[in-house]
């Protein structure tokens, strides 16, 4: 029997008064980490909410771990641990109260793991939510999701607003969860470093659409910046791969996607001297993607 995909979205759309989610295809297999990146308002949270069954798409299909949403969402939700920023805990109650509450609903709750997480996150069971910092609240909600040991973890901006130490604790725990090869993580982040570090797949979202979605190594490998010297003022070759051109006198810096060796030759053939070819960080790719997408939609 084939293992079902962790998530499979086919042609989903959603229309809001001021925002439109265009056709979204998104899938990844179990045992992997998918990171969603994109600017504010691009639609990352909407996609996550459609996947966990909180928002029903206008068209298209969503299946999670082989269960169709929303029809089979009861079975699916047993296996999904969703955490988002706007999740509220009971202010006047303790972490222990919340742990007992979740435990009473999900029989998969793991007491030992919950204890380990309390220790690793520096949390005290008896502490009331009221006096907790933002970081402690985030870690408490993550604990409540993780200790259920769901097959799919869906985290909306898990590291936003965390200090470097708390951020590391959260990322470490996300990777620890991946020791189980049937577990999968889908998360969104503004922090491109987080996504670059732990994701197996990266999906780039802009203005309600998926701009790029692929294996992280290919994603990072595909983008290059060529530094060129153009002594005789030659015309740049007309390549569809070019995403950005910055010029200062005779010096050019050209950003390309889907890089391969023939691209270098094309520039050389056009009479330009290639000084260096650099890789880009995910952050630079992010900015270049946004800039290009803006130009295209303008």
């Amino acid at each position, binding site marked *: 029997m084939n293992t079902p995909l962790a998530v499979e979205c086919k042609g989903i759309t959603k229309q809001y008064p001021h925002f439109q989610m265009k056709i979204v295809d998104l899938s990844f297999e179990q045992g992997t980490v998918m990171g969603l990146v994109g600017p504010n308002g691009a639609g990352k949270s909407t996609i996550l909410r459609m996947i966990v069954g909180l928002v029903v798409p206008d068209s298209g299909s969503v299946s999670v771990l082989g269960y169709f949403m929303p029809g089979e969402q009861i079975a699916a939700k047993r296996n999904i641990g969703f955490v988002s920023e706007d999740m509220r805990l009971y202010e006047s109650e303790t972490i222990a109260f919340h742990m007992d509450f979740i435990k009473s609903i999900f029989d998969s709750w793991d007491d030992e793991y919950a204890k380990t997480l309390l220790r690793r996150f520096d949390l005290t069971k008896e502490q009331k939510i009221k006096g907790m910092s933002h970081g402690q609240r985030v870690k408490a909600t993550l604990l409540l999701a993780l200790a259920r040991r769901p097959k799919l973890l869906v985290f909306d901006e898990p590291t936003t607003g965390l200090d470097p130490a708390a951020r590391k604790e959260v990322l470490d725990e996300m990777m620890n969860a991946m020791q189980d090869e049937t577990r999968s993580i889908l998360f969104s982040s503004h922090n491109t470093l987080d996504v670059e*570090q732990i994701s197996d797949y990266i999906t780039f979202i802009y203005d309600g659409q998926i701009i790029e979605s692929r294996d992280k190594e290919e994603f*990072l490998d595909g983008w290059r910046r060529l530094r060129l010297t153009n002594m005789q003022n030659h015309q740049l070759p007309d390549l569809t791969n070019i995403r950005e051109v910055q010029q200062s006198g005779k010096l050019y810096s050209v950003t390309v996607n889907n890089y391969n060796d023939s691209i270098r030759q094309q520039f050389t053939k056009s009479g330009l001297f290639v000084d260096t070819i650099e890789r880009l960080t995910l952050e630079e790719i992010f900015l270049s993607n946004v800039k290009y997408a803006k130009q295209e939609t303008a």
Partner: protein
Amino acid sequence: MDYNFVLSQTDKRPMYQQIMEQIKQRIAVGDWPPNTLLPSIRELATEIKVSIITVKRAYRELERDGVITTQQGKGSWVSQSQDLNKLQDEKLKQHLEQAGKLAKSLGIPEDELLDMIKKYT
């Protein structure tokens, strides 16, 4: 098990190359002699908190370079015929490459760079 791979954030090379280098170093200094079983890809990835696909790529490239041998479904081992000199040569080449790049960006001519290297031999 604790493998203590320390990856650098200021190192400009991609993460998979840093992982490759750390493995090669362990082999070069003899900590991982031939036939040593390497940690599984998932095990190493979750320990050093780096995506599985990145470690997978590091292993694939090491296998291609003949540094490790992988048997599908069983694991990866340090290759038998480990040419230590070759690994060290490679290391030296990397340093020279860095030196060359730096000299170029500082505008130091070739003969001057050669004189500088001579000082250390």
